[in-house]
């Protein structure tokens, strides 16, 4: 029995086939957070919905609340992000940031900030030359918006203001530790250089326009990658499925002349 219909917009994250011709689709919406709903007949060639419910598509959608799983009644594409879908490297980045966003969004909970961040990042992905910084921008902003902002100004244990220098980052405390607390607390930590600390603070406070201009050394890139990926893994308590694919394609893209498709 259909109770009510909610109209919202959303970004299609993934889908799985179910039954003869249906699909269960997962979306992130600003108004009701994560949506998991069935699209009846979406796998049939003549389906009015199938083509619109492709991952990495921004859509207008109507969802009927039912006693069991919600049902998609109408869908229309707002933006299909074609450039991303036709480039394997961009696609692997988009898959990663979408899986990450999905992990931080709950069902039936407003997620306007995360939705806007995801939309902004996917839109930028089509034009941004600095994709590595875009990933870091997304990760760090997402954590801040989800209540896991890495503490980079004061000691995350005792609260004293940290003078410029190199410190250890504790996953458990969610930020830097002063030298005294580092001695007392035995948790998972990573050493961060003064430049890495400055960089994370910069990303936390600046817009992408400024961040995109940065060109990092491999050492700095690796240091930040270790801390941020480790912290995300600690928060989520799982490995992201898309991460290994992103790493594989990034490695291949580095060696290859182009990852553009001929499709």
């Amino acid at each position, binding site marked *: 029995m259909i109770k009510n219909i909610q109209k919202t917009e959303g970004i299609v994250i993934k889908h799985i086939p179910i039954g003869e011709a249906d699909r269960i689709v997962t979306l992130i919406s600003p108004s009701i957070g994560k949506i998991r709903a069935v699209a009846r007949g979406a796998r049939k060639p003549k389906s009015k919905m199938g083509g619109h419910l*492709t991952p*990495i598509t921004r859509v207008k959608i109507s969802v009927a609340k039912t006693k069991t799983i919600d049902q998609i009644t109408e869908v229309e594409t707002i933006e299909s992000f074609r450039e991303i*879908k036709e480039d394997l490297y961009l696609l692997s980045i988009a*898959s990663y940031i979408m899986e990450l966003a999905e992990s931080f969004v709950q069902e039936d909970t407003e997620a306007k900030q995360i939705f806007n961040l995801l939309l902004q990042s996917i839109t930028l992905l089509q034009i941004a030359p600095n994709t590595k910084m875009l990933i870091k921008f997304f990760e760090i902003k997402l954590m801040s918006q989800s209540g896991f902002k890495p503490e980079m100004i004061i000691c995350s244990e005792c609260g004293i203001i940290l003078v410029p220098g190199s410190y250890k980052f504790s996953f458990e405390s969610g930020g830097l530790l002063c030298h005294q607390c580092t001695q007392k607390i035995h948790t998972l930590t990573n050493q961060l250089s003064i430049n890495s600390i400055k960089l994370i603070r910069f990303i936390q406070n600046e817009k992408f326009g400024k961040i995109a201009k940065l060109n990092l050394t491999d050492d700095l890139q690796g240091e930040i990658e270790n801390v941020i990926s480790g912290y995300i893994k600690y928060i989520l308590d799982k490995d992201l499925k898309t991460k290994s*694919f992103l790493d594989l394609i990034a490695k291949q893209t580095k060696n290859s002349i182009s990852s553009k498709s001929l499709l």
Partner: protein
Amino acid sequence: MANDKSASKSITNLIEQFSKLPGIGPKSAQRLTYYMVKTPKEQALSLSNAISELKEKILSCSECFNITEESPCYICSSQSRDTSTICVVEQPIDLIHIERTGVYNGLYHVLNGVISPMHGIGPESLKITELFQRIFSLQVIEVILATNPSLEGEATSMYINNFLSEKKIKTSVLARGLSIGSDLEYTDDLTLVRALEGRKFLN
């Protein structure tokens, strides 16, 4: 129901077995089971024999990974097939559909899935390395990428194409666009773009 105490053990067992099939819920499983109770013994046995025969005889072709009763399959061992072309498909069922058209006379390669990062399926889970080995050993001239026009299918094609284009091997994809009998009004933007790009001149 499957755990109904009034039903006999063999009935609950069969209901459980039917429920494991795709698209069969507990109610359908129950209906099928009670139908089998009423079915003549010969008919029920022929079904059970057909299933065991399938599991005993069917194997995966050592060349193209199609399902077959003999390995290599009839296509890979045929003398009349064009070995300079390989058509790459996701599943054995896709091969059957292309074969049914009767217009293709080359070889096939079944990947047994598609790259789907969101579901943790990477290129290493598919028969892609085997495909590359075949392409080089058979000296293939053209590789037709016949994966589905879904995001995952296209990602798989792009992955294969990236590798083959570096090796200077010609690749092609099936035409993208409107399907026969579909409605332009309800077609998504990307399909329309592809349909326009792939338009054909009539004169």
